[in-house]
């Protein structure tokens, strides 16, 4: 069991959606870990960029702050 503090976490309905979401902000190559097929861990600044990119595309994810 490890505690990773101040990371960005993205969870999607399925792995395909996650791939598309990561690609939308060019974050696919910057993923820190994929603990599950539909979950990615990112640096916080990458996660913020992802939120911005998705909002710009009108996708409006559920952002938990």
């Amino acid at each position, binding site marked *: *069991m*490890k*505690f*990773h*503090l*101040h*990371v*960005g*976490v*993205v*969870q*999607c*309905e399925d792995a395909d*959606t996650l791939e598309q*979401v990561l690609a939308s902000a060019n974050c696919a*190559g*910057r*993923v*820190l*870990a994929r*603990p*599950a*097929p*539909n*979950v990615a*861990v990112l*640096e*916080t600044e990458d*996660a*913020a960029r*992802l*939120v911005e990119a*998705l*909002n710009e595309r*009108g*996708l*409006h*994810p*559920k*952002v*938990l*702050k």
Partner: protein
Amino acid sequence: MSYAAANELRGYAQGELDLLAVLECVISRQPRVLKNGLPNLAFFRACNDALSQPDVEAEGVAYSQVEFWLALARQIGLVHEVDSRLEPDDSADEFFDAPLMERRTRLREAWLNARDFNEFSVTPTLELPGMRKGRTVDVGSDIPGPGTLIDARRAIVEIVTTLGQETTLAALVRRVRDTLPNLFINHDDDKSWRNVYYRGIRERGAREDCERNGNWETVEGAVIALICELPLSRLGWVDYDPRGQLLRQASDEPEATAFEVVVQPNFEVVALGDRPDAATLWKLARFTTPQPEGRVRKYLLERAPFAAALGRGAGASGLTDFLAGLSRSPLPQNVQFSLKDWGALSERIKIWPDALFIEAEGVDDLAKLLPARLVETLSPEVLPGGHRVCVAPDAATLRGVLPPRRVPLDYARRLPPVIEPGEGASLRAPREELHLRARQLLELLSTSRGTDIYQLDADAVKRSAAAIGPDELLRRIREGLSRPLSATVALALRTWSGEFSPPIADAAELLIADNPEQADLLEELTELRGWIERKLARGVFLLRPGGSERVREALKRLGLGVAERKKK
């Protein structure tokens, strides 16, 4: 209910609606905060237009009400700055959840203790050359500082609460002047030649500072009038009639609210009624885009604020039910469908931009290991694979709930380098010390070769260098390794990543001329130039394969000989 009581409570309720209007403008505009700490002029204008009785810019100091409500909102943390922009704070939700009387008490205390609000600066009849742009007071001026103002506010409230049922503003000013002449500015030494003027304070439009003699009502009296009209009236201490300049004692009886909303098929929500409830409208404003500038309170249902509300923990069905409860008729079907759809779509992608990720590495059932107080305090959400995630708590909260001897890996800082270069092209990385950045680096560079052992992989390095760039890859390598790489491994990595071009090891054909001038002349010969691949030094040329034979022939044609190297 007496007229006075009804009017007074409407005064406070109206004041709270003005605060709500300012907060709604913060939601809809998210104004940029300038260097002086205040939002831009456009924001002030928009807020002013949204007030029940807007200030008239031409009458003097504009936007005193907006400045007042904004100062109070900041004082009790209803708004905060994010990346130099003003945004509503989650504590505003808690504020509006509290009962009306508690909210009023908090606002009153906020004004009484406000250090960023100076009544002198917003009094319309006064001009303050002694106040700088950032609302700091010039040391040489008579403008009272925050400490004096805090004491003065309490003194005025004390006097006002002991007044009779009804009194005039003039009587109040006289009473304050007679009992507390030094309330704002010390007048004990007014006969001195040093204290002829109110330094840094003048009447609006005047060319010189006010004389102290005979102008107490003009300066302090004007400030007291503003205090009656704005804080005392809007925070429910008195009922103030600015036309008749009359003050009435206030009653504490809460007034019933009466309003309803109409939800239109074009996604507009209109609040109707002359006594709307600020707390309810705040809840509405939090999942819609408020449009506070008009005379009618309107809220636009949009996907972005709806998704943002879901992110703050609200449920889609709960918000829909709340809206339906306010509406006098059933919600239009297209609105119902859209709200349901927005809720479902938002749930498809969930992002925690700043999270605590609890990794169930090598643990079958994390629930058994997590301390109950951690689960209770942070309420982490279960992810596939048994991992947990929640919004990153502050350091003190996290320390209080972590299991013993567990230290979180803080990605806001630089993490320790845990990968050790081994023999040859191998790397060693103990699993228990591996953080996600190190794991990511290992994936970029190597393939696993057993427990804690990894082997550098040329193909992986080439792929990674192409994806993130050789410079970035090398930076990560330097940061991630516990000690510098051996020359062999460094050469390999930098070559694989594309930083170095491969060195040449071959039987070379050379053209050598000992005399520098001879070398320059040879270089100019067009017959030779095509066979020179690279000039290695002055007089030393690397020839293309087969070039030596061609050069000999060319030189022979010119009648020049070629020296033979001595063979051992």
